[in-house]
């Protein structure tokens, strides 16, 4: 290996000979979020896809409502609802190919479910019987990530590894507007661009990080403008327009699949519910704003388009709702069953083999439980 071979195309050269390393112009997002619904582009959208998106949106909306209800019933520790953001959640799951990977953030249970994970397993974390309730390899869905933005480098690494192995796999990583401020966001995007890793970053800009509005989060023209600083294309999309999100994601995934490298997509949307059931959103935002967004509802937007174009009628709407209801009924019923707990699980998965110290601790708990059971038996 000679020294010359190791250097890339852009060898250091005096500033007098300096060239920009790539043309920034094509990396910059359009000034306005891309839209499909209600525009000419809608005519080109595949009706079957639109109907599929619609059905999933209706399910998603219902899922959020059901999960929120479950918190009130004490069946979930907490639920961060994505009501208002269903278009992003659903499109994220549906745009992926079978072999692709999804890296969700803590709010993205819906995307996880739309990807095929069992709706109850997807809630394990929030019910509290374990951390991750599903096998990540089954549907190629990484664990829901609580520490914000930390899952982004994972997505990059996985995509990079797949590419090194020659596999046709793209990773899609989800993050919130708040999460873009974390160092991990920066490092992930930079690694992705340098490695030309097949990964797509979807930022759901829902206006808030808990109570902190976007203005206190960034001064950028848009979050999509961050892309140029990494040398990847940035795209801005209407996050309440499921068809637009799906299209932009599909294009970015195809670009990555073809070896074009990563894309940063900002979907402009809104969190209509509070941050979680434990949050009081009236402390930091007014009703008028929420109402304006309710009027721009992703489900209604798509429903309007479909009905206007004769792709959906009353029956279709009813069918979608019934389907969602039965999903919700099933979820409710199964979530009302107490999960089976085994305290020995505390020690089972810390290492491949428990350390001698963990064996001691496991035996201690086992003995405690046995003693408890015995004294309970004796008491009877």
């Amino acid at each position: 290996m000679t020294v010359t071979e190791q250097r890339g195309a852009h060898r250091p050269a005096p500033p007098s000979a300096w060239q920009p390393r790539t043309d920034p112009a094509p990396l910059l997002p359009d000034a306005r979020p891309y839209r499909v619904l209600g525009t000419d582009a809608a005519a080109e959208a595949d009706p079957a896809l639109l109907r599929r998106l619609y059905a999933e949106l209706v399910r998603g909306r219902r899922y959020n409502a059901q999960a929120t209800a479950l918190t009130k019933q004490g069946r979930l520790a907490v639920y961060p609802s994505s009501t208002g953001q269903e278009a992003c959640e659903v499109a994220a799951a549906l745009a992926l190919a079978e072999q692709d990977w999804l890296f969700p953030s803590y709010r993205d249970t819906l995307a996880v479910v739309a990807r095929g994970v069992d709706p109850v397993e997807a809630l394990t974390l929030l019910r509290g019987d374990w951390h991750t309730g599903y096998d990540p390899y089954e549907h190629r869905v990484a664990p829901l990530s609580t520490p914000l933005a930390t899952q982004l480098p994972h997505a990059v690494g996985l995509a990079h590894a797949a590419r090194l192995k020659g596999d046709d796999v793209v990773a899609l990583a989800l993050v919130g507007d708040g999460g873009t401020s974390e160092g991990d966001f920066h490092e992930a995007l930079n690694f992705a661009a340098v490695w030309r890793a097949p990964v797509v970053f979807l930022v759901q800009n829902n206006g808030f990080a808990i109570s902190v509005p976007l203005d206190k989060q960034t001064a950028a023209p848009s979050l999509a403008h961050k892309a140029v600083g990494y040398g990847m294309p940035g795209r801005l999309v209407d996050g309440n327009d499921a068809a637009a999100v799906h299209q932009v994601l599909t294009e970015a995934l195809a670009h990555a699949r073809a070896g074009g490298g990563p894309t940063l997509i900002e979907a402009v949307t809104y969190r209509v519910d509070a941050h979680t059931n434990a949050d009081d959103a009236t402390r930091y935002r007014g009703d008028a704003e929420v109402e304006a967004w309710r009027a721009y509802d992703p489900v209604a937007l798509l429903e309007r388009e479909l009905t206007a174009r004769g792709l959906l009628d009353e029956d279709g709407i009813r069918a979608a709702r019934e389907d969602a209801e039965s999903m919700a009924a099933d979820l409710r019923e199964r979530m009302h069953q107490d999960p089976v707990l085994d305290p020995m699980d505390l020690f089972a998965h810390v290492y491949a083999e428990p350390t001698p110290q963990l064996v001691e601790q496991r035996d201690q708990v086992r003995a405690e439980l046995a003693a408890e059971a015995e004294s309970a038996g004796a008491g009877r």
Partner: protein
Amino acid sequence: MTTVAVKPATMAQALTCALRDAMAADPAVHVMGEDVGTLGGVFRITDGLAEEFGEDRCADTPLAEAGILGTAVGMAMYGLRPVVEMQFDAFAYPAFEQLVSHVARMRNRTRGAMPLPITVRVPYGGGIGGVEHHSDSSEAYYMATPGLHVVTPATVADAYGLLRAAIASDDPVVFLEPKRLYWSKDAWNPEEPQTVEPIGRAVVRRRGRSATLITYGPSVPVCLEAAEAARAEGWDLEVVDLRSLVPFDDETVTASVRRTGRAVVVHESGGFGGPGGEIAARVTERCFHHLEAPVLRVAGFDVPYPPPMLERYHLPGVDRILDAVGRLQWEAES
């Protein structure tokens, strides 16, 4: 006989009160963190401060913990006294480098020229049904970092007093708030002039003769409960609340153990490599010939903090403490 009229207050209220009083007393005190402004913090500890002192004094920051602590360093360099809130224990980890490489060392690096009077408030510990990464006990990391003070209150009055002392300190203080005690109440009157506890003094919460429970933060009430329960077994337990892990009050702890001859260290944090090892080791070094039995430890297990439904099997409770006390070789006595 007169009793001073004190009304019950929560630890959360006392912390808010301490912040307000500190801000009122010194314009250099600035509160900053995620959601601390408009929302008043996810635990509402900073409630009302932005309204009272303005958003510059109680500032919502971008969502980036290294950035929060790193900018606090710069603010402290310029003479401010930043009080930083980390939203949950595990979300302080992104700021670890700033904490270890700068906050803890700046005074030393500059031969004392550039002290950093920063208070880092970290709600810590479990028992509140939090999902993963919301219930860590990270004090071992901070204890192992010279240059930091590490302080944690267990009572409403200490919450006030120690937080005032932390903010007044010219050195950085990691102020660990036991989140499951936020809503614990005590007779405490915010109208009364408050004693500001000096940092570094442990306190004997309960006098006893049989053995000493050495503990702090969220485990103090558990130990007091265990001490009550122990009476049925004929044990009269002393309970020492450390309050400050750094500096460590060897004097109080050693005096107690020399008197009782037996000790158990109790904390939520994992046992292996946790604070209990240090405490047991130094107590043994100082009290060896007074000890009737080895200093034992009752701690969280050496596992990642468990999910809400399993945490009761993990947390040190009364039974485990009594079991440990029972293993203090009482036979030797009689």
